[in-house]
């Protein structure tokens, strides 16, 4: 079998393996949402509704049927691609996810990219020059990043750069009201603006993105920089690096080809982990900057027991993680010399 096809088969197998996991998540999530206290029918019927109208709402939500029946209906709809209605926002769950997921991902991936670009060189420098000023700066950033609550960083940045200095645009979502969004292709405003060639809009989108992105980047800087530093220290102290040095290879070559490539493995794993908790941390940033993302949607839905919305959210997250794990595995085979050869 050609190696390419073999890889594809492996990927397909991995995806297939995820099916029981996702189904399990579906069941647990379905049961958990039902176990939440509170009666969605009573809530959505409104404060003045009488018992009769609450029953009508219950019926329209399909909550009058027994649980197993509800689950069968839910899975049946799901197979047809119908995730139901999010009563709390009045939109179909699928369109909410389609609109909000890119918003959150743009923020999350952007923050991850920025912190990766800063944290990795910083970690490498700190590892190669332990106990110098670079190392101290690294240590300071790491400590600050871990210890500052994300909500606080967001508010503080907003206070300084929007409220006091006026450099940042009004924190009111993804695009200033002056601009019209570019045609939706990916849902990422920045990419869509590039595709449409609307540079002014791109600038505006980046300006809106700046503060929330920095907030999140500060938060993720810490684990990545720390992991890079530790991994680099470890590989720099390992036998093969010593051998390479003894063999007279240039220090640049030793550092990048031998040490760094090996140190990158735990960093990529960390990246995957950071990504997952970043999606959680998003909620607060989304609230502060009025970002129409998936986190704030899920929290609001949870608070009012909006079953369909919560289930849709959990399902999309589960899918996201399946893809993410796969992606990390693929990246692994690309950067790990051993994995690459084995294949």
């Amino acid at each position: 079998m050609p190696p390419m096809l073999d890889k594809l088969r492996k990927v397909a197998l991995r995806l297939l393996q995820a099916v029981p996991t996702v189904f399990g998540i579906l069941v647990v999530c379905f049961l958990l949402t039902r176990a939440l206290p509170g009666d969605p029918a009573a809530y959505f019927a409104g404060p003045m509704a009488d018992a009769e109208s609450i029953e009508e709402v219950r019926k329209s939500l399909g909550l009058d049927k027994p649980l197993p029946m509800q689950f069968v209906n839910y899975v049946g709809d799901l197979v047809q691609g119908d995730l139901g209605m999010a009563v709390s926002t009045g939109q179909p769950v699928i369109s909410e996810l389609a609109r909000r997921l890119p918003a959150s991902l743009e923020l999350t991936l952007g923050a991850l990219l920025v912190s990766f670009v800063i944290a990795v060189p910083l970690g490498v420098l700190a590892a190669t020059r332990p106990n110098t000023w670079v190392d101290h700066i690294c240590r300071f950033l790491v400590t600050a990043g871990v210890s500052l609550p994300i909500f606080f960083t967001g508010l503080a940045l907003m206070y300084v750069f929007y409220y006091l200095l006026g450099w940042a645009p009004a924190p009111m979502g993804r695009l200033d009201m002056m601009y019209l969004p570019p045609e939706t292709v990916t849902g990422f405003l920045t990419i869509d603006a590039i595709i449409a060639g609307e540079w002014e809009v791109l600038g505006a989108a980046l300006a809106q993105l700046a503060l929330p992105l920095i907030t999140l980047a500060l938060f993720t800087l810490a684990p990545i920089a720390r992991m890079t530093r530790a991994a680099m220290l470890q590989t720099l102290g390992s036998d093969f690096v010593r051998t390479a040095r003894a063999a007279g290879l240039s220090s640049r070559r030793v550092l990048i080809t031998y040490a760094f490539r090996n140190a990158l493995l735990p960093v990529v794993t960390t990246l995957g982990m950071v990504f997952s908790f970043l999606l959680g941390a998003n909620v607060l940033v989304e609230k502060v900057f009025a970002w129409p993302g998936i986190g704030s949607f899920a929290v609001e839905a949870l608070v009012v027991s909006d079953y369909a919305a919560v289930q849709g959210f959990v399902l999309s997250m589960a899918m996201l993680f399946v893809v993410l794990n796969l992606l990390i595995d693929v990246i692994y085979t690309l950067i790990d010399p051993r994995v690459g050869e084995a294949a």
Partner: protein
Amino acid sequence: MNRRDFLKGATSLSVGASVLPLFKILPASAASQETAVVVIGGTINSLDIHRSGTNRSSYQVAINCYDRLVSFGTKEMPDGSLSYDFDNVQPELAESWEISDDGTVMTFTIHEGATFWDGKPVTAHDVKWSLDRAVSLGGFPTVQMKAGRLSSPEQFEVVDDRTFRITLPFPSKLALPDLATPIPIIINSEVAKANATDDDPWATEYLHRNPAGSGAYKVARWDAGEQLVYERNDQWIGGEIPGYQRVIVREVPAQSTRRALIERGSVSASHNIPNKDAKELAEKPGVKVVSTPIENCIYSLCTNLDFEPFKDKRVRQAVAWSIPYQKIFEQAAYLQGVPMWGGTDTVDKIAWPQKSPYDLNIEKAKALLAEAGYADGFDVPLSFNLSHADWAEPAALLIQQGLADIGIRATIEKIPGANWRTIALVEKKLPLHLENFGGWLNTPDYYFYWAYIKGNLFNSYNYDNPEMATLVDDTLDMAMDHPDYAPNVKRMIELAFEEIPRIPLWQPTLNVAFTESVEGYEYWFHRQMDIRALEPA
């Protein structure tokens, strides 16, 4: 599509999925002479107030985009701000109306030349279809219609294209004002029927996303969870043409962000701000705060009569004498509102809300408690709705201290907003809790109907008194100039204070912050922003 193309097509009505570009045309500052930007903390989840699940923030669409047959006039408040006037019913879609001598038949003449946005004249058929819809769909609209004694399609009759008749089972003073609430909106029935299905005869799915009205503003764009953009309808006939061509309502969930936005002048108005911000922002240059006492609304501490010690009215009175009212007013209300304690011993007026005779008096409270046989006090949970934590939490802590002074040991329980209604209002099982009911229709008897009649929703404390029930029953539909009206209401208030199941703390305010560039704001009982009154300064 570029901005010029868009301008040409700016009257297009479609919203939702079809992405309508809009904003390239705006001047550098979004808030301008033409456009106002309003920030709200909630989210608009439907453009149809009749739909089940439609939340409070969405009521504004019914107010700004639809007309009712009638509306309320305007009055000036003592502080110079403006408020709607419950006692002054004004035409909106109806240009005139007549009420029969026996008070049961109301005949409305629809405004000559009134048209929906698509140009179709407004007819009595539209009115009938719309009111039929409100009484038939169930849920909140039906309940609110019932308050005006409107409960069946048989009551609504088309006389001719411009004449519409409502027949009441018995005369009621609440019928006409109820027609001015956000519920009985007039919908373009032809558009709606064209989009109705067998499963959905009232076109709830269509009107959810596509308003079809005759009101002062159309919806130019709705990005659910982000913003709603109103575009003025220059053909509006229901009142004076509004001052702004366009109003953008943006949803900003974090209160601190909303505050920064209004302080920096990035937005024109911030709706429903907390008391603390209202107090602080009022002192800042460039920001105006309008605080209006919310009519027919009292923040209260309720003592549940199902809870053994509270069965004795002396215990309830003791609680009422143990509350540090002034401190609560300072630390929970930030002095925004109207004190509701320290009144006279006798009820000598029928204004509602009015001050209760209670005040902080630990000696009196202890004496009453001892008299009732609870000298050693008792344990009781004190609950509040987490959605109202901004005022309820500090109030609960101070009440807890007050109760501790007379030996009652209260433990504070926070209840999530989504569960509040079921636990507090439906099951009515919270022994001691903070409550915020306010009635839309501004008559004392309407308040007493909801809050002091056994089984009614806002009687969350199981108060049951046959005398009160008879009084409310006799008075609810009675005209206010009826000779029995004032004595009846006075007796209700006396009973409420004597038996004190609901201890008034203060009358809250609705606070709205504006930049200097906006004028004309008017308070409405529905507590939503009526953008029709706003105008550039």
